[in-house]
């Protein structure tokens, strides 16, 4: 297995584990504003162009306590955690919040945040979810301008073409470097824990992007000799899990069962870094293009596009990575994924691609039961391998 330089990796890991501590320290250091955004489609470049720190608000690992009375138990763990963070003061570091996604549960959490901490501005501008109508592009461009006005109001800074173009450049560079890690993993030339890759992506969502890019470059420069995963490991694709990352313990548990994760479509993974913002032309229109292109590059259950579907993308990407099976990680009560999952399962089943669903929760991890499930899944894939070796 490859080793990521521990000195360079440590600050990334700290920021990923405690984004609020990082933002607090950044604020003290720079005196700047910290703007929180909610997943999955807010263009952080817009906030960055004002000089503020854009931070995608993460699910907290603390036990949900006071937040239990603010949202029902049948809301997903991310939104319940947001409500709890609002109630327990964990969101104090943020000066304002922005979101462009329309998930009903997320909007419920936004309502709670507004009620519990009314002094923090919260701006919602809904990006259209029908991606290929004649009016889709115009509608998104209009909403980008609306969000620009909201961000400018919260920060007191005007976003110019020049400042936004510069921000687009640094975010594109950051995504490019992150994709290098993912590309190396997919081609089998990089073997590091999935939880370490998650740290790289998650920290990019919460850290100063220039600082993050410098650390990524250092990691790549100091990467030891590239090594491939042992042949006996079963190659899997991780799918699902929007908004919040799967727990690192779950990723480690998967890999303890003779598994190597070769690709994913997780939000805290390939989905987040899949698409660059076009660097030429009107930078505000470019943000709209980025939003529309993302659903083509890694389709999402929350978006509608006639000629794009997640299951076709998944089948194609499996061929590309050589993954032998798919593990779908589903946050309990995540409605978009719950509604889409039957289609995914049916498509994979028709192609005899092994698929396993694991439901995740904020509270705890039924480790032994999950281990048994994964090991059985791996045993089944191994049997398929050996069947293929039988003489015809």
């Amino acid at each position, binding site marked *: 297995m490859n080793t990521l330089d521990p000195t360079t990796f440590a600050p990334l890991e700290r920021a990923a584990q405690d984004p609020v501590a990082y933002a607090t320290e950044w604020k003290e250091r720079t005196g700047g504003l910290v703007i929180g955004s909610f997943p999955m489609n807010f263009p952080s470049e817009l906030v960055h162009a004002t000089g503020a720190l854009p931070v995608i608000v993460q699910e907290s690992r603390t036990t949900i306590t006071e937040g239990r009375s603010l949202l029902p138990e049948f809301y997903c763990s991310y939104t319940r955690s947001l409500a709890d963070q609002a109630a327990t003061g964990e969101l104090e570091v943020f000066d304002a919040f922005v979101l462009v996604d329309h998930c009903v549960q997320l909007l419920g959490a936004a309502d709670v945040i507004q009620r519990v901490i009314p002094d923090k501005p919260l701006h919602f501008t809904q990006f259209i979810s029908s991606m290929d109508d004649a009016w889709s592009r115009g509608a998104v461009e209009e909403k980008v301008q609306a969000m620009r006005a909201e961000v400018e109001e919260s920060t007191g800074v005007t976003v110019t073409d020049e400042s936004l173009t510069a921000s687009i450049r640094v975010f594109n560079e950051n995504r490019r470097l992150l994709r290098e890690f993912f590309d190396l993993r997919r081609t089998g030339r990089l073997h590091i824990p999935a939880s370490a890759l998650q740290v790289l992506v998650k920290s990019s969502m919460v850290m100063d992007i220039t600082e993050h890019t410098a650390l990524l470059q250092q990691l790549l420069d100091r990467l030891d000799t590239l090594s491939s995963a042992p042949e006996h490991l079963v190659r899997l694709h991780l799918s699902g899990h929007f908004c919040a990352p799967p727990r690192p313990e779950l990723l480690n548990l998967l890999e303890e069962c003779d598994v190597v994760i070769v690709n994913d479509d997780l939000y805290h993974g390939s989905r987040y870094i899949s698409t660059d913002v076009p660097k030429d032309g009107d930078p505000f229109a470019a943000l709209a293009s980025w939003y529309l292109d993302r659903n083509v590059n890694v389709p999402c259950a929350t978006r509608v596009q006639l000629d794009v579907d997640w299951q076709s993308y998944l089948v194609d990407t499996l061929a590309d990575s050589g993954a032998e099976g798919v593990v779908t990680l589903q946050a309990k009560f995540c409605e978009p994924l719950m509604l889409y999952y039957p289609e995914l399962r049916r498509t994979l089943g028709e192609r005899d691609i092994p698929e396993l669903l694991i439901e995740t929760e904020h509270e705890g991890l039924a480790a032994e*039961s999950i281990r*048994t499930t994964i090991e059985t899944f791996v045993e089944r894939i191994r049997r398929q391998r050996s*069947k293929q070796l*039988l003489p015809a």
Partner: protein
Amino acid sequence: MQWYTMGVDLGSTTAKAVIVDAAGEIVASRVVQMGAVSRQAVGVAIESVLEDACLSSEDIARTISTGYGRRLVPGADKTFTEITCHARGAAALSPGVRLVIDIGGQDSKAIAVDDDGLVDRFALNDRCASGTGRFFDVLCRALEVDLDEVVDLALAGTENLEVSSMCATFAETEVISLLAQGSAPADISASVHRSVAARTLGLVAQVGKAIPAVMTGGVAQNKALVTFLSDALGQDLVILDTPQIAGALGAALIARDEYQGQLGLTVQDIETDRQLVAQRSGGLRDCTGCDGHLGDGHAHDHDGGSRRPVPVILQTDALSAAGPSPR
């Protein structure tokens, strides 16, 4: 030279050990009751089964462990999950099986078995203990009877009371509440069994109904549950003589397969493949196109209209391609 392999299943309440010979025949088996996952109990099970088989540990070519305590079994060469092992063991004990319902002390599983008698799809109960052996322990405690009496009571029950099937702890509270309201213990026991059957049906639905269906695990010895579950499924269940050893037997057979592979005796030629298939299938008839449902003109009336489950003939792809046996 004769050789043997061993399978050890360390579950939540019992340790099971099985020894098979090179032909896959059971030489000896043991089930040892214990309080919880226990190294001591597994030691007793291994020593006892060796003694029963008149063998020593040196005679065992390979050992595979399974069950929740599989990593605690001393001397195991490898581990496999109880899902894989129960499927393999059930296929050996009931050739042609397509669905295995395994209910143990702490968990329950539905396993769809493919043409080769191996796991195709599977579903486990959630972290809750409802529908498991522990659930019946709770019922016994609440009714202040032992397990045999609880089964007899359930079979005698007539009224269908509403009992939650969602939580063992809450179910106990409900049982006490029903007793306080004057409900008959027989009706309470029957209703609890019925709710467990409904919960198990939900598990089976995740992998799909199929026949023949076999019950394994300790709870397969509960005649009342078998009756209620058969009703819920709308099909007969094959009951094994020794349902508790299915996992350990599967482990022993997988160990045998692996050791054969080491010796170069693995399935490399079509004739060996035929022998293995014949051993698994028992030459029973195929119920072509059947999805396990009765009715709509489809009755399991093979074997003279006995309505017994109809096993299918197992075939490997290689065997199909080779055509019929010359013998």
